């Protein structure tokens, strides 16, 4: 009941903002070609639905595969850095540095190297998603109580068993937290990667629509991206609730 209520409030805010926007454009505040009114965006969402859908499928594939790739790599690296302190000392600063490389600069270089296919998109999405997942997973490993490790040692558990039985399950909530943060940056990363060289996708569609003065279509592409990010976030929240129910708290939930 509470969930429905809070979602209803969000919809109310959105409706109010759309109303102000619509009135502003209708009353001549802005040229509809520069700022399309919401009804024109809605019209485009309907008229261009086939184009938007096929573009969405391309971008969704890049984002989902990229996040999966990032999660696998992040888990492996976080585990390795957890086991070997020297590895952590060596790689952590480099990892932070890698995040300061501007994606708009990196993406064209990757296109040059990997071509116009899905390759450079996956690398960009994985690169931007990877960082939050490593950081939160490492925090999860570190959150294990030192006394619990001692207890396991008096039970004659090997280092490997301690990892599989205690440390890995304890780090799983961190993996989900990282993935939820990654969803948003992953979508932005995919758009930049498509701008650097692509022939399909929502970012590509956006880029092509602006010079043709199809601003309503460009806005429709943004709406689809936003809804996609929200849905992905909600799916991850659901997966988190099912997989790590002991750690699930409603903080960070979509409905607050």
């Amino acid at each position: 009941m509470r969930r429905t209520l809070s979602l209803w409030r969000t919809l109310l805010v959105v409706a109010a903002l759309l109303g102000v926007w619509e009135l502003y454009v209708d009353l001549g505040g802005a040229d509809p070609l520069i700022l399309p009114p919401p009804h024109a965006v809605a019209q485009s969402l309907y008229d261009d639905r086939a184009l938007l859908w096929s573009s969405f499928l391309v971008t969704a594939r890049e984002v989902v595969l990229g996040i999966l790739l990032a999660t696998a790599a992040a888990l492996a690296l976080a585990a390795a850095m957890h086991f070997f302190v020297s590895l952590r000392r060596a790689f952590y600063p480099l990892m932070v540095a890698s995040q300061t490389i501007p994606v708009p600069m990196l993406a064209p270089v990757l296109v040059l190297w990997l071509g116009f296919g899905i390759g450079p998109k996956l690398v960009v999405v994985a690169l931007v998603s990877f960082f939050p997942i490593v950081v939160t997973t490492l925090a999860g490993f570190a959150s294990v109580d030192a006394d619990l490790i001692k207890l396991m040692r008096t039970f004659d558990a090997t280092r490997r068993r301690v990892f599989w039985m205690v440390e890995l399950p304890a780090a799983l909530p961190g993996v989900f937290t990282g993935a939820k943060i990654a969803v948003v940056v992953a979508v932005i990363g995919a758009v930049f990667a498509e701008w650097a060289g692509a022939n399909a996708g929502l970012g590509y569609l956006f880029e092509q629509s602006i010079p043709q003065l199809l601003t309503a279509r460009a806005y429709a592409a943004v709406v689809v991206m936003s809804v996609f990010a929200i849905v992905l976030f909600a799916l991850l929240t659901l997966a988190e609730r099912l997989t790590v129910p002991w750690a699930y708290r409603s903080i960070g939930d979509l409905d607050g």
Partner: protein
Amino acid sequence: MVIEAPPKEPSDLHAQSGVRVEHVDRTFAGRTGAVHALADVSVRADTGEIVTVVGPSGCGKSTLLELICGLQRPDAGTVRSAPAALMPQRDLLLPWLTALDNAALALRARGMKREEARAAAAPWLKRFGLGGFEQARPAQLSGGMRQRVSFLRSLLAGKPVLALDEPFAALDAITRAEMQGWLARVLASEPRTVILVTHDVEEAVMLGDRVLVMSARPGRIINEVRVAEARPRRRTDAQIVGLRERVLEALGVNQ
């Protein structure tokens, strides 16, 4: 509580299963410099004996247990002990496991198959009054139940020595009193060499065959009190009350 016949011994107890701590000194690096935890501490526990160690907070009691469990090494002196399992102060149950799987953790830790470990632990849960809670998660259990699962987990490690670190300190007074009685009954039917540290004088006297009194840091043994009273003991027995007074006096807290 009815204690049924034991379903199966967790493991063969070693013939020689005592604890000998002799003239041990231990200093470790703390946040604000070196901490002298133990000074010339000697503790002896014979097979099947329950030795309680009572002292003020931070007197090195936990350090003593970690030495016995082999988790630390002494700077001076010797520690000889049969294999010991720790029971920590906080229950430290794994929130993602059921009560049954938590109890079976020590069995799984040494490589027993999941189903086998569950089959071995299940009768003990019933015996410990936790029947029907096998599938409950720790968050669904009361504090006393969680401590019972935690104790069972350490018991099933099958070590001849149990090192109990303030096992009931986190419980409310009523539950703690119940749990002390419960532990006395369990140990009567399931004898182990036990070193139990506590800051609760009454607990030390109620449960121990001998009570060692420790000073504030650096911890030394300043007194030893033998409790000859037969079990089951009652808190109100004249001898228990008298011994409690004696221990309090040794700690210097009796007016």
